[in-house]
């Protein structure tokens, strides 16, 4: 990547202000016009001193994933930071407090672990904070100021971000933090910079004013809000909870209604109830919650009620690893529940995609009268990217509903499979919907011909969804035409896939990548074309068995090479790259 490409990692324990420092850093970088991608890791425990890491990659052009190596590590807690010193590249920097209070045994200080090619920077965050603000609480901001000073970032931009962050607090809070920042900045001015990390100028300075830092979950919220969400029902579950928390703030201000329900079953039931009554309604959950929702989603399919379900996956099965990322709920999202219950499943690959998919999910749900699942994972839900919000709201308002004709056939067998719809309150549209198989009028029917016709209708109506205007359902990147290696991916992992693919291209490997955003129904024609162009198709994904691999391979009847990884951490670019190299060598050998 040309231009600036610097990844900062800030590591401390809960209570050190680690995430807050990272937050100010990434927002400032975005404000300056850099592109940012960032991911915070929190401890699973609520109390105590669990490890927090904030990683912020700052680039001139938007990066697709975090880097495997950081350029700069800042330690706010050595015990937590020590295992991460190794992630700093040669000639990168490790910044730490050189005056800890507690007496440390040998190796207890982070400086003991700095490799000969990494550059140490010891600063007394604590005493600088104490001098500047009268207490040591501001040491995270001192550290941030030091970082900013060391790399020559403009202090004013940080002041603005700090003021924004503490806007709802008394002015004294902002003032103290600015003083702490300035003191740290000052300390850096007197420091001799020995590492070779360079922050170049941002290319997109003009974008800075409009750019916002958004997480995947934050983008989901924006998408839902811009699409005019009326009702939300949810039950807290990591990593989806932040969606509900933000909607709780924003929906009442715009006349929407957010209700925390007693469980996930209630959440999806009320979502479908509100959808039946004509609202744009949504819920958000994670894998265990989706499992509880499976029966109700089947009802949504059978009764043809629009609803939107955001699912942020985490490590599974069962309670699994709530604070670790994984892509292992594809099977459940696509197939979960009783019977032949096809629904629409979208899996955005980046933060901007989360916005589009969340908003368009309402359109799709209404247009095709079906539940729509938007499948994220923890890594995408929680990672930050710079997003330039669209100038115009890109989403269509609610579709008109109403009975057609003298006899209202709610489940009329039309050519498209989509039937006229009326909502309660509309005269002439009175009807009853049910989870029982039913005839065109909605009355229970278990006649064989009827079941065949109705099942076909429920599948047929979704087919055009793969070509829905304004929605990228599948897309190929890199070289067009015939290639040796195709990399097929979905969800958050696609960022790492792209980085690996571009690197492989640089190495002269003939390859290209394809992302599948719509997992159900699958865009089969585009997939067929991709498979026809690639000698080998590799499918890296974050689960144990290779769920997308099975889905695509089974649907097309074509072999794939699986690269499933379920460690709880995001996919590693170098691991994908190694597999691509291996396959490229095999392909070359086979060709000889």
């Amino acid at each position, binding site marked *: 990547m040309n231009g600036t490409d610097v990844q900062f990692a800030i590591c401390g324990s809960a209570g050190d202000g680690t995430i807050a420092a990272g937050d100010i850093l990434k927002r400032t970088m975005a404000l300056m016009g850099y592109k940012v991608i960032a991911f915070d890791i929190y401890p699973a425990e609520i109390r105590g001193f669990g490890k927090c890491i904030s990683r912020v990659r700052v680039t001139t052009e938007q990066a697709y994933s975090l880097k495997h190596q950081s350029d700069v590590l800042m330690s706010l807690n050595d015990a937590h930071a020590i295992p991460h010193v190794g992630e700093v590249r040669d000639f990168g920097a490790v910044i730490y407090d050189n005056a800890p209070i507690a007496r440390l045994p040998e190796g207890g200080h982070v400086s003991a672990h700095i490799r000969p090619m990494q550059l140490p920077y010891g600063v007394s965050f604590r005493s600088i904070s104490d001098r500047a603000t009268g207490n040591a609480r501001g040491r995270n901001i001192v550290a941030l100021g030091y970082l900013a000073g060391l790399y020559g970032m403009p202090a004013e931009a940080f002041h603005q971000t700090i003021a924004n962050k503490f806007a709802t607090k008394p002015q004294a809070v902002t003032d103290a933090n600015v003083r702490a920042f300035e003191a740290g900045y000052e300390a850096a001015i007197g420091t*001799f910079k*020995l590492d070779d990390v360079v922050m170049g100028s941002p290319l997109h300075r003009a974008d800075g004013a409009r750019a916002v830092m958004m997480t995947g979950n934050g983008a989901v919220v924006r998408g839902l809000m811009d699409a005019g969400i009326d009702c939300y029902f949810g039950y807290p579950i990591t990593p989806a909870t932040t969606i509900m928390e933000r909607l709780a703030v924003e929906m009442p201000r715009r006349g929407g209604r957010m209700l925390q329900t007693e469980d996930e079953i209630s959440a999806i039931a009320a979502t479908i109830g509100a959808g039946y009554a004509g609202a744009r309604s949504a819920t958000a959950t994670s894998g265990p919650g989706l499992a509880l929702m499976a029966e109700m989603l089947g009802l949504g399919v059978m009764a043809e009620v629009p609803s939107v379900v955001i699912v942020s996956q985490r490590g599974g099965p069962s309670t699994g690893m709530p604070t670790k990322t994984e892509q292992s709920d594809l099977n459940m999202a696509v197939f979960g529940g009783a019977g032949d219950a096809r629904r629409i499943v979208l899996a955005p690959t980046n933060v901007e995609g989360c916005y589009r998919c969340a908003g368009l999910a309402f359109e799709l749900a209404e247009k095709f009268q079906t539940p729509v699942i938007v499948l994220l994972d923890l890594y995408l839900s929680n990672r930050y990217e710079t997003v330039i919000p669209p100038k115009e709201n890109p989403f269509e308002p609610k579709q008109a509903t109403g009975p057609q004709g003298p006899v209202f056939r709610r489940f009329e067998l039309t050519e498209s499979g989509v039937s006229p719809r009326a909502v309660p309150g509309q005269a002439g549209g009175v009807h009853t919907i049910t989870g029982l198989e039913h005839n065109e009028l909605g009355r229970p029917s278990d006649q064989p011909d009827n079941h065949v016709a109705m099942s076909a209708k429920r599948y047929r109506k979704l087919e055009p969804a793969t070509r829905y205007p304004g929605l990228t359902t599948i897309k190929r990147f890199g070289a067009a035409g015939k290639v040796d290696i195709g990399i097929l991916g979905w969800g958050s992992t696609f960022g790492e896939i792209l980085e690996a693919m571009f690197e492989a291209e640089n190495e002269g490997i003939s390859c290209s990548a394809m992302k599948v955003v719509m997992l159900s129904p699958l865009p089969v024609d585009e997939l067929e074309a991709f498979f026809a162009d690639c000698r080998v198709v590799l499918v890296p994904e974050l689960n144990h068995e290779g769920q997308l691999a099975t889905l695509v391979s089974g649907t097309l009847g074509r072999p794939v090479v699986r690269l499933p990884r379920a460690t709880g951490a995001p996919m590693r670019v170098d691991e994908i790259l190694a597999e691509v190299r291996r396959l490229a060598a095999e392909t070359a050998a086979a060709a000889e």
Partner: protein
Amino acid sequence: MTESLHYVVIGSGSAGHGAATTIRARDPGARITMITMSRLPFYNRYDLPKMFKGVTDWRDLLAEDPKIYDELGITLRRNSRVVDIDGRARTIALAHNEVIAYDKLLVCTGGGPNVPAILEDYRPLMHGFGTFEQASATVAALPPGGQVVILGGDMIGLDIAFNLLEAGYRVSLAVGEQTFWPHRVEPDERAVLLKSLAKTGLDLIEDRSVVAIEAADRPARRVHFDDGSMVETDIVMPFFGILPIVDFMLGAGIDMERGVLVDPALKSSNDAIWAAGDVCQIWSDVDRDYRFYHGWKNVRVMGELAARNMTGAEETFDTADESVIEVDGNGCIRSTFWEH
């Protein structure tokens, strides 16, 4: 199986580096830790004058590929200042509050610039050249063809002066007692040497003592002398010999004078502590006194010797004084301190 010994070497210069690699060669199972205030891996201080000729990246000054620390299994602790040594408990305390236990300790912290009391207040207005960071700041402060005033001299300073002249800078040298430090020079020798110096292009300032240094606009410094005269210059560099860095050892319970007092085997009065390089004063049977042996060659020899003795050898340092400075047939100064 006996537990491996922990060797701790304080200082990562020539002496420390030579010692650590020697210990590794003689005791493959030992644990070796080097502690240094430097933030860089081992580079040669004697190479710093290259910076006047455009070398600005520290990586070009490294004496060794930093990979060797991993290869040799030497833990390099940079940016770490030792604040205390407990000679009985065999522990050392670092400024960042970490305590390290050792079995055998080698002190080779070298020396820092000796600044006369009268110039103490003007430290912020003077430029040093002892570390890469100082050298970088010095180079950065010098405009092309700029003026340097070197106070004192000493063999290190003279070396820098010659490099500055070669690089096209103007250099004034305020000569004094330490101009040829560490050589002990008789008055008649001194006159010859000064005459030779004057021929090199150095502007000699004689028979005057500095009384004050003042910051100015351009050029950035004014040096005032006791006769009321004043010299304008871009930078001022003090070279009055070096003083051993031993302040952190005051609580170690070992015999010290200006430096750490060691026997010819370089062992201190504590059986587990050795010293090598500019920091130590070695007992000389000839002189019946403890003496310093400066110069890079001595320093390297001492480091390796101490390491051998720490690992079981019983060798002694050759305390015969080979320190010689003279003007050769071409009128050039030759010194055993330099090897170029």
